[in-house]
């Protein structure tokens, strides 16, 4: 499978594999880390991986709709990051903690 | 980079040379600032080292090289050391995409027994067809240098300065982008080289469907969009952290703001970054609104024709001479704008932080939006009736 030609001439598969890798690293960040902001960053990383696969498809099928989708995903992700950060700031102001293990007990 | 070895090597040398041009202009700018500010404040500036104090900067650089290097906050060493590097990168990248002169057209010539074909070398490090979007994207990375410097210093005051500075920068990036939309609607392209080509010759207006030529004014952007020019100028002051938007480096408030803990060569790199940003800002203003490298009322082809006919140069030499002349014109415009930057710095007092944010969001943003709407309506009306 790893012939020289498959490695050296980069095709759609390579970009999609990179996108899958980044998506899984983002998912691991959300699952494994306990800091609220770092989990938000994991979500942003997942959205970026999806953007990469959209742009790769748009390039290899010569269709501009992929890039339009990237526009929308980028905007929605930025909006979501803004609201998420405002929420995190409020949580920090009230509890002085953004470690999600402290919020397991449905108190306060 | 090019289609044969000659073109690739010329392009590579051009890349390096334009970067070095930016780095070498910085000591000259600092000298102008120190002497000019002294002149404004009715005192002498540095005038002992070298003729007119010109080698003062060289002496300072040598002094910086021998200073002791200390790093506060051993826990954040990498961030502290990387911040000056990140300060240099946006300015250098953005400066490379601004056209400094007319493209040089080389005719086919014989050398080493081979014919090297006709070439066209644009007088910039690289050329995209998305010129201005590239500059906007790359200069928004300058906020990281501030944040990294402030955080890596492990000093509360530096952190405050850095946070205020980056909030200021991202607010004014918005005003910057919006003030450019008006002029981009008129030119219809993102590419700098095309924009400068569109500003050749005398002023040509389309009023209600017919074309008028006012031959006593050059075809510069400032006559089409005066409000856009004012807003862009003010927003670029804020982007480069120059007075009156000087809070990040407010001396007497925050010691030296985000670069308090830096000494020696790292401090020098911050200065190169700041003056590099000023160069990029001046280059942008002169490309959009002051006609770029164009001499008023004449087009580039007319200059090349003049050289060919009256001086009898070959086409290659005429192109080289025209580019050299136009480069001097561009540099004159850039220096004029830089002098205005320096003049304003030593004349106006500094804005308070909330006044600064009010100005960015409540004044510049609505005016820039209004400018865009009026421009769009005008274009639709004047070019279609």
């Amino acid at each position, binding site marked *: 499978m790893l012939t020289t030609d498959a490695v050296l001439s980069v095709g759609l*598969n390579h970009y999609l594999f*990179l996108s899958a*890798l980044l998506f899984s690293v983002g998912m691991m960040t959300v699952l494994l880390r306990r800091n609220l902001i770092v989990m938000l960053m994991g979500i942003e*990383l997942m959205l*970026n991986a999806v953007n990469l696969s959209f742009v790769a498809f748009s390039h290899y099928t010569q269709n501009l709709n992929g890039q339009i989708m990237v526009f929308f995903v980028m905007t929605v992700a930025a909006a979501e990051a803004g609201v998420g950060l405002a929420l995190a*700031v409020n949580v920090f102001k009230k509890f002085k903690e953004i470690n999600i293990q402290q919020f397991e007990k449905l108190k306060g | 980079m*090019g289609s044969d070895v000659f073109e690739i090597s010329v392009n590579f040398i051009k890349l390096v040379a334009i970067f070095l041009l930016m780095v070498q202009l910085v000591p000259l700018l600092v000298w102008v600032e120190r002497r000019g500010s002294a002149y404004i404040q009715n005192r002498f500036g540095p005038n002992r080292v070298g003729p007119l104090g010109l080698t003062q900067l060289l002496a300072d650089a040598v002094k910086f090289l021998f200073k002791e290097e200390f790093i506060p906050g051993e826990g954040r060493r990498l961030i502290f050391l990387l911040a000056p590097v990140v300060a240099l990168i946006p300015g250098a990248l953005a400066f490379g995409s601004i056209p400094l002169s007319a493209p040089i057209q080389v005719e086919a010539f014989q050398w080493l027994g081979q014919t090297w074909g006709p070439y066209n070398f644009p007088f910039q490090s690289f050329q995209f067809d*998305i010129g201005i979007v590239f500059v906007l*994207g790359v200069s928004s990375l300058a906020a990281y240098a501030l*944040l990294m410097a402030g955080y890596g210093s492990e000093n509360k005051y530096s952190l405050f300065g850095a946070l205020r500075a980056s909030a200021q920068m991202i607010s004014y990036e918005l005003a910057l982008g919006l003030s450019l939309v008006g002029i981009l609607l008129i030119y219809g392209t993102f590419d700098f080289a095309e924009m400068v080509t569109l500003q050749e010759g005398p002023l040509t207006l389309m009023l209600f469907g017919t074309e008028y030529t006012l031959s006593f004014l050059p075809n510069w952007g400032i006559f089409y969009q005066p409000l856009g020019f004012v807003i862009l100028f003010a927003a670029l002051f804020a982007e480069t952290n120059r007075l009156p938007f000087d809070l990040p480096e407010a001396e007497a408030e925050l010691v030296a703001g985000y670069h308090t803990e830096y000494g020696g060569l790292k401090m020098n790199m911050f200065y190169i970054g700041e003056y590099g940003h000023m160069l990029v800002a001046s280059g942008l203003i002169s490309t959009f609104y002051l006609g770029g490298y164009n001499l008023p009322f004449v087009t580039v082809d007319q200059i090349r024709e003049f050289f060919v006919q009256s001086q009898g140069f070959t086409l290659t030499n005429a192109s080289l001479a025209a580019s050299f002349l136009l480069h001097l014109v561009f540099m004159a415009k850039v220096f004029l704008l830089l002098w205005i930057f320096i003049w304003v710095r030593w004349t106006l007092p500094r804005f308070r932080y909330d006044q600064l944010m009010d100005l960015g969001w409540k004044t510049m943003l609505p005016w820039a939006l209004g400018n865009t709407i009026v421009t769009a309506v005008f274009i639709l009306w004047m070019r279609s009736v």
Partner: protein
Amino acid sequence: MGPGEHHCHSGVYSLDAIGIGVDMQEAILFYILGSLAVVCSLGVLLSKNPVSSALYLALTMVGLSFVFVGLDAFFIGMVQLAVYAGAVMVLIVMVVMLFDLKKEEDSFSPGFFGNGLKVILGGFMVGAIASVIAYSTEMILSAPKITQAEPVDMSVKALARLLFTDYVVAFEILGVLLLLVAIGAVALSRIPGGTHADD
């Protein structure tokens, strides 16, 4: 690879003369930038200091932006640089610096087996996606609609035209969404009475 002539490189930036063809250039660009992106994303996951995580994520986004440029999506690449790396990440870095958290000793969820299970399942997911990609790309790329011969205009003008004609409703809704988000963020973080309440 894909159908024959999908490369729309203009050749101006090719280094053909010194033996590096267009394919090789694209491969070098992809591998360098791709490994930068993967290494930095692992830095996001593994670094203990949240500020370092945020800076690594910013570098990942810069790397991805240049991957987009390598895929000939110049405008989207620069918008990614300006919006994501230049505004969203600056916001996140600012918020993390404001919190001023110390280096966290227990930044990962506890439980070795729990974490191990999550990592293994993540690995399964990557494997599943990779095999789906490997089996289906041929099918997608040789579909009759795709292998057309006429060159499609993929410039910024075409993108803008598409955005303002076919997708104009979604575009306007996006504007309303951004307005809602701005109002929401201000409402969440305001001090009753305004900033100058106790002046």
